[in-house]
């Protein structure tokens, strides 16, 4: 299938696969603990929340926008769900439903503001991020919610087996993450709205000229990110067994890094979930490997930053070169 070929062998994806292989070889040589199933599965689970958020950010980036308020949305929706579950005994479905609704609403606010105010989405989301966080802290007094109901804090294992390195559990976060990744890829590549988002990201003027609803695309993209932020918030709470309003603050760059390393750009119109998935694998490997070798976790932030900058620079060069070759003479 030609599409699969594109997904696996696109430029970014190929580079990532190569990087993963190289890193895997180096790391497995440095530490015997590295290339074990339990280690790898733990890695993946540690990145589940980031990946879910990255899927949403990916969609917004493809639409040509950017959103840095998603951690605020995740925190707010997580808190709402936790509050409803602990104070009103909401069931899993209804708590999640309420959180999801709030997430979509907060995301839609971003879309509406970006559309009607005609302002750069970076500035809109700087504002909404502060508003959402500030209101959340104000109304919750920064109190954590500890006593999450069992259905939330119990670890849900889907698959469990023993391996040479220990017990391996495929837990809820991993499954949800895989579902989100697959669903996002499906929506973006195989549905009409996904293709419209790509088209809009590639040329917004042409898109509106042929009848693609601009506001519709924006609402769907930012709303989807809001929805995934709620899901991510729920998963995060289930992993740490509590809802903390400020837990996810500061993660914006990590998530953005994953999406951009995976091939999305600030310009929009390009990228694939395959690339994002590969980027997660690469970063997870890198971080875990460095941990095992003994490098400080703070240094990792620097490394991530460098990895992004290198990848953007290379993409930037390639883009500029192509543009020069085929520039339409403007009259």
């Amino acid at each position, binding site marked *: 299938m030609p599409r699969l070929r594109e997904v696996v062998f696109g430029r970014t994806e190929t580079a990532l696969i190569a990087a993963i292989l190289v890193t895997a070889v180096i790391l497995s040589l440095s530490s015997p603990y590295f290339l074990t199933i339990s280690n790898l599965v733990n890695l993946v689970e540690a990145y589940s929340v980031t990946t879910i958020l990255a899927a949403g950010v990916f969609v917004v980036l493809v639409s040509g926008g950017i959103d840095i308020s998603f951690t605020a949305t995740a925190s707010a929706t997580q808190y709402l769900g936790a509050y409803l579950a602990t104070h009103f005994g909401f069931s899993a479905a209804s708590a999640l439903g309420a959180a999801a609704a709030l997430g979509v609403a907060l995301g839609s606010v971003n879309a509406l503001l970006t559309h009607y105010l005609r302002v750069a989405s970076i500035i809109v989301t700087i504002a909404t991020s502060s508003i959402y966080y500030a209101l959340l802290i104000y109304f919750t007094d920064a109190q954590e919610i500890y006593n999450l109901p069992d259905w939330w804090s119990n670890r849900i294992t889907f698959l469990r087996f023993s391996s040479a390195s220990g017990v391996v559990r495929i837990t809820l976060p991993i499954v949800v993450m895989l579902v989100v990744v697959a669903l996002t890829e499906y929506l973006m590549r195989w549905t009409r709205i996904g293709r419209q988002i*790509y088209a809009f990201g590639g040329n917004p003027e042409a898109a509106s000229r042929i009848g693609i609803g601009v506001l519709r695309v924006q609402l769907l993209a930012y709303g989807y990110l809001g929805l995934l932020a709620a899901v991510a918030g729920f998963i995060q709470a289930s992993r740490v067994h509590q809802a903390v309003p400020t837990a996810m603050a500061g993660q914006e760059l990590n998530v953005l890094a994953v999406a951009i390393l995976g091939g999305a750009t600030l310009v929009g119109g390009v990228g694939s979930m395959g690339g994002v998935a590969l980027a997660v694998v690469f970063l997870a490997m890198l971080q875990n490997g460095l941990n095992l070798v003994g490098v400080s976790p703070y240094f990792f932030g620097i490394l991530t930053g460098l990895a992004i900058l290198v990848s953007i620079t290379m993409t930037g060069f390639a883009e500029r070169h192509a543009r020069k070759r085929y520039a339409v003479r403007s009259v």
Partner: protein
Amino acid sequence: MTVDSLASADAKPFLALSGIGKKFGGTVALDGIHWSVDRGEVHCLVGENGSGKSTLIKILAGVYAPDSGGSISIDGSRYASLTPSQAKSLGVQVIFQDLSLFPNLTVLENIAIDHQLHAPFLAPPARVMREAAGAALGRLDARLRLEALVRDLPVAQRQIVAICRGLAANARILFMDEPTASLTRREVELLLRTVRRLKALGVAVVFVSHRLEEIVEVAERVTVLRDGRKVGTFPAAQLNNHRLAELMTGARITHQIMARSLRDRRPALEVRGATRAGEFEDTSLVLHQGEILGLIGLLGAGRTELALALFGMTALDSGEILLDGARLDLRSNQDAVKAGIAYVSEDRLGLGLNLKQPISDNIAITVLDRLVYAFGLVARRARSRLASSWVAQLGIGAPNVEAPVQTLSGGNQQRVVLAKWLATDPKVLILDSPTVGVDIRNKQGIYGVVRRLAKEGVAILLISDEVPEVYFNSDRVLHMRNGRIVGEFVPGIASEHALSEALYA
């Protein structure tokens, strides 16, 4: 279909406009337009900026509604106005100059984009899209890889994609806005071949363009608009560029050859064996002081590329550039400007001007160093004064030099660009397609400025692809093709027709 209606379908034009008018506030954009295009006809629509042609097209595309009282008739059915979806379903497709394609999507997706819009939830299966796209390409006998990304295609192929998109949406009349502006000669021929196929398929094509030499091969009739009214519809074969210019402006423009022999003047700029891989090869020329040297060639000839190298924006692979006899080593365009070379880009709006900034800063930007009075300070008043003096000298219609440059007309904007470069007191002035997008009336004004400059001793390289522009405003004309200089013409000794022939050979 009975025999009767078939006969009448032939006698009736596909598109007929009757009494179409449009006012925007107090301005009359269109007034009482009666126009018709036959089925499968290749028609050319020309007019200056402000003639109303873009308004007319937008009315047909459904973007604007005409004022009441007129009617649009498409294939026999009458409408007072059209909506965009109505226009599309009736087969009216407009391809604007930017082609409105999605560079990040494949050829397949771009051509079949309509299917994407009307599919329910899922994107249409690849098979359906491929059939639609393949059919469109097949009808044009064009071969393009469906999986290629539009961003990777050259302009000519992108145009094919745009046309195919129209076909896939069942276009029956296709409007193309300045389609040949970015095409090389060979690509133009490809386009014209495509147009002939469209004609054979019964699709009418309306070109909006005034590049008669190219269109006349396929165009049957030409309609001229001026100031919102139709001047007339003429058989293409009866027109030439001069007649067309007269019809468009309503004025008789007399051209005079100005060529003088200046070979005994000292050379201001000399280029020896300049080569840049993929752009131009072994190019040599001599530009004398006070001379206007025309450099003519079609797109792809390498004229702008050569100019950019002379201006220091790109580096030569081999060869030399000498200014006043001294060899120049240009690392950047700042070196060129310091040496006394100025370049007026063909992309006036994007590269020549800073549209939202005031006229004063647009003019002063090149010579800020000269306006410094102490500690790197450049008073706003100094910039204003400089701009005002140039406004006076070049006759720019700008009552307030602090107004943004975008408030000026095209002709005045071009004068601002000239002002900013003349302020640098250049020895060599390179003009790249300086009157593109400028009304014919204003063109003469700019030529006047250029000639005055030459008289004052500035050496001018006039790059263009319009024969009359170089023929009547140069002392000598060099013809460039495929990166090489292939001919030299002296206006007056060689005829305008000979130059035209050589250019389009």
